[in-house]
């Protein structure tokens, strides 16, 4: 069975780390099933595969880990993205990279911990290439990646107004959040693999 996390982390089949991962067999299998559910769904519905990989390539590029960034970049090409779309995703990710997590808390004692950061808006050239629907998703995605505690209904309403259905928003939220998981697991296992006991 394909195991994307092992592949991206460079863990050799049969190695000690591969065997250690087998002690959590369901976590391993279901992390793969999660990838499959998002990126080879039984029905993509109104959230196309190309759009899924455009968001994924953006998220992976924001995280800046070579192994996952390159993989999703290639998947976007394989999904039939035009050269203009590929450039728009890469250049927006470059412009939008920052340090997180930041954001605001409900007013009270935690206000002392509020920290401001970039509130990203897609640039005019990329907006033309992405279209309003995908551009709005990139803006929502950037918030999810870097400052999820700033989330508010207005961001979801912007998604709905841009033509995303409630169900599509659930799928997009899962996709971005799953990648936040997968990219970190790969980064963590790669570090562990590089430092055998």
């Amino acid at each position, binding site marked *: 069975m394909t195991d994307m996390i092992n592949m991206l982390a460079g863990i050799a089949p049969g190695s000690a780390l591969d065997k250690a991962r087998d002690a*959590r067999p369901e976590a391993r299998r279901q992390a793969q099933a*999660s990838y499959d559910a998002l990126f080879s769904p039984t029905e993509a519905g109104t959230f196309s595969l190309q759009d899924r990989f455009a968001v994924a390539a953006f998220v992976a590029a924001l995280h800046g880990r070579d192994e996952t960034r390159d993989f999703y970049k290639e998947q976007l090409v394989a999904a039939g993205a035009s050269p203009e779309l590929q450039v728009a995703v890469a250049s927006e990710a470059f412009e939008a990279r920052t340090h997180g997590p930041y954001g605001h808390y409900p007013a009270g004692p935690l206000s002392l911990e509020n920290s401001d950061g970039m509130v990203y808006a897609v640039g005019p050239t990329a907006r033309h290439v992405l279209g309003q629907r995908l551009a709005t998703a990139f803006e929502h995605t950037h918030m999810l990646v870097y400052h999820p505690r700033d989330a508010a209904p207005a961001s979801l309403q912007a998604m709905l107004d841009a033509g995303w259905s409630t169900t599509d928003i659930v799928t997009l939220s899962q996709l971005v959040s799953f990648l936040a998981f997968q990219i970190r697991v790969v980064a963590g296992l790669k570090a562990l693999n590089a430092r055998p006991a």
Partner: protein
Amino acid sequence: MTEKTQTPPAHTEPVVFTRDQLDWLPWLEPAAEETLTPRQKESLVDAARAKSPYFRLLARDPDILEARTRTDKDIFYNPQAGLPRAERELAAAATSRLNGCIYCASVHARHAAIYSKRERDVQKLLDQGISVDLDPRWNAIVAASAALTGIPIDFGPDDIDRLRSVGLDDLAIIDVINAASFFNWANRLMLSLGEPATTD
């Protein structure tokens, strides 16, 4: 036809990190309990979750919900070796504290406190944040969770060495990585699809 977000009923929002039981109120419309399809019910894994607006909202995409839930359960509940449950919960609580998910932190701080019987230390993490000084082993787990949670991700060989130096073997380190990474998934859903409320 454009859909609309939901305005939650009047409630009190929690303004500090707490181990108290909280509610969660959705900003998007969950699937109605009586209209759940067999596939959606199956995706909840636990039938009781049909009562939860959070899981009924996620059930709009049942395939990813089911895979997410089964990933979650094995990371936290698989009893075979590795990191004790209390410390998997500690990693989840520390991650939630850094991302700022008051709801997730409340659930997993409660679990961490129950399984470790170290209520004071868990409360210190909630009160002071991830730079808190607990003991060398818990500090290492909290620091590793924080390094994995920050973006750019600042987790590397030094974190592995530190975890080994406080007694974690490969499987226990995998558990830390899985638990902290999984909460980077869970926190984003809970934070962005609704809001917490106190239960009085």
